[in-house]
């Protein structure tokens, strides 16, 4: 299909000096936020013991294990700042991301053995479920670095039980296996109770010689028969019992390699376990890089650093989305779908490393006279109108038909509102897009470039749809909230302000409340908060966005569950006409 894909339509233009000058302080602000994110990530990664302390004990840290395991330059961290239940260490105590092992993409996740020997902590199971969902969506192996001391007991009530609690990942592992997706585990250290199931639930278990896994460990030997409290005699007895027990923790390699045979392999060196994982990764099913390429890979025609001068940090300032896209896709080339319809969104085919993806993004600014066609007011990009919604529905449907992974770019203030908009069916068309996404069953990723607001945030790429959205990225300009803080303050307090005014009371207290709410919205919609709460799976530097697109496309095409031959595709023919 050379005529379609070898050289598609070029777009974008070089940055002009005027724009560089005007956006200089905006670029500085964006880099400033990136610095804050880096610092927060550094603090989370430093939780617990130092690398030297762990090494002195004869172990590698999870970061050292990852560095040895993952192909150089292919690590794409996710959830670096995820900490939804606000653990004071700033982490859920697992480290995960997308990386290549022996040339094949995998979702890799490991317990941070620097902190409480890799304990379960609040919020961790949600983090793990994001990793299992990702492996499921991309149909690629899940690789575990298990080193888990079990539950952090003083806080067990926050994570032990529940539908999405610490036991849920074991069912997810079984689901992955049911779907033919292997879960490979390298097992280190002491893994009692929860750690035991973390160890036993994967497909292939490769253990370090000092590792053990067990239904229960030293910590619970005394708790089996509660006596209503403790006294000194009992505690002394416990100390003696523990001393004897800790000399020989249950479930070592002699038991689970020689005895039960649960461990597939036991390695003398820590790196031996990682070498074993590499060996198994070489054996997993994966298409070669060339198999699904529609053209030779090429870099974008414009430098990635331009993005700092193209995406204004001022949420109100209009910019050209097409110029952003031109810095992200192969050769700055595309085939645009219905350019003369629904001007508020771009839809089209682009290439990432020579692989085809569907791209969708909000265009910004004035949309021209007579649009939207159903209203007597002008349209502005960022908002969604009837044609844009219809176009996205059509485009996603065709991407599903042609088995194209979809990359969404959001900067949306919402769907048009009002009686006229209701009559134009926008409520129904928004939900139609949800239905359309559900129907496609192709991997999708989302970049929230700036605003993710109102229902438009839900329907554009489904960041809340774990079966479709592989992951969502934020940028230093991301802002996610149901609406702008000032709009929320008006909606919440205007009625009260009117009452106070009519009663002749001072408006000061209401105004204070309104400003408090605006401030609260500001704090809870910015990149750091979004990353901690999991609104985005990672905040990525603007000049690293393409790396994540490459990882997504590479992983999505590694071992797809269904394929469409290039010469059977309909979308390029529809675009050509």
């Amino acid at each position, binding site marked *: 299909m050379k005529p379609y894909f070898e050289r598609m339509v070029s777009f974008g233009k070089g940055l*002009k*000096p*005027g*724009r560089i*000058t*005007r956006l200089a302080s905006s670029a500085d602000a964006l880099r400033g936020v990136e610095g804050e994110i880096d610092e927060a990530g550094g603090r989370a990664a430093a939780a617990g013991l130092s690398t030297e302390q762990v090494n002195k004990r004869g172990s590698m840290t999870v970061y050292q294990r990852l560095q040895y395991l993952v192909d150089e330059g292919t690590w794409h961290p996710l959830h670096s700042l995820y900490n939804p239940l606000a653990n004071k260490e700033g982490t859920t105590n697992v480290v995960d991301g997308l990386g290549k092992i022996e040339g094949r993409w995998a979702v890799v996740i490991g317990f941070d053995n620097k902190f409480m020997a890799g304990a379960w902590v609040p919020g961790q199971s949600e983090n793990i479920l994001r990793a299992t969902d990702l492996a499921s969506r991309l149909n690629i192996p899940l690789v575990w670095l298990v080193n888990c001391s079990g539950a952090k007991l003083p806080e067990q009530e926050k994570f032990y039980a529940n539908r999405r609690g610490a036991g849920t990942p074991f069912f997810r592992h079984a689901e992955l296996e049911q779907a033919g997706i292997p879960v490979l585990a390298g097992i280190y250290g002491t893994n009692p109770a929860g750690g035991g199931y973390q160890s036993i639930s994967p497909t292939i278990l490769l253990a370090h010689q000092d590792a053990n896994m067990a239904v229960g460990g030293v910590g619970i030997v005394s708790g089996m028969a509660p006596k209503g409290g403790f006294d000194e005699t009992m505690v002394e007895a416990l100390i003696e019992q523990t001393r004897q027990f800790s000399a020989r923790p249950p479930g070592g390699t002699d038991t689970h390699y020689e005895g039960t045979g649960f461990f597939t392999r036991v390695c003398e060196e820590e790196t031996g376990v990682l070498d074993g994982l590499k060996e198994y990764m070489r054996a997993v099913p994966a298409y070669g890089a060339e198999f699904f390429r529609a053209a030779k890979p090429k870099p974008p025609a414009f430098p990635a650093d331009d993005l700092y001068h193209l995406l204004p940090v*001022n949420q*109100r*300032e*209009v910019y050209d989305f097409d110029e952003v896209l031109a810095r992200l896709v192969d050769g700055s080339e595309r085939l645009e779908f219905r350019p003369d319809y629904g001007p508020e969104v771009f839809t089209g085919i682009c290439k990432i490393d020579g692989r085809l993806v569907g791209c969708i993004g909000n265009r*910004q*600014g*004035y949309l021209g*006279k007579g649009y939207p066609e159903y209203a007597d007011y*002008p349209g*502005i990009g*960022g908002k969604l109108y009837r044609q844009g919604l219809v176009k996205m529905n059509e485009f996603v449907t065709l991407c599903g038909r042609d088995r194209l992974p979809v990359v969404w770019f959001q900067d949306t*203030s919402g769907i048009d509102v009002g009686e006229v908009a209701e009559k134009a069916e926008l409520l129904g068309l928004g939900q139609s897009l949800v239905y359309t996404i559900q129907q496609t069953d192709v991997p999708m990723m989302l970049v929230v470039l700036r605003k993710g607001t109102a229902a438009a945030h839900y329907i554009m790429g489904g960041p809340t749809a774990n079966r479709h959205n592989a992951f969502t990225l934020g940028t230093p300009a991301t802002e996610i909230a149901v609406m702008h803080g000032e709009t929320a303050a008006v909606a919440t307090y205007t009625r009260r302000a009117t009452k106070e005014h009519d009663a002749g009371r001072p408006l000061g207290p209401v105004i204070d409340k309104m400003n408090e709410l605006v401030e609260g919205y500001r704090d809870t919609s910015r990149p750091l908060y979004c990353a901690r709460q999991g609104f985005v799976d990672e905040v990525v530097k603007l000049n690293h966005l393409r790396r994540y697109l490459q990882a997504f496309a590479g992983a999505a095409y590694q071992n797809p569950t269904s394929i469409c031959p290039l010469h059977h595709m309909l979308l390029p023919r529809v675009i050509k006409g």
Partner: protein
Amino acid sequence: MAEEVLAPLAGKVLSVAVTVGELIEEDAEVLVLEAMKMETVVYASCAGTVSGVVVKVGDQVEEDDVLVSIEN
């Protein structure tokens, strides 16, 4: 020869970045229009000397209204 910079959309003038007699480059910021809660930056369509600034901050303009003239 004078070139006119026109309003790309109807809106309120939020700021004006040039003054009469000023030498500007092509694509230099001329002014910012606010419409529908969004700010649209208007850039110079050519290099030259600003020969006229027709609007001031707070003015309401219509689409295609002349904003600034540039002698090039």
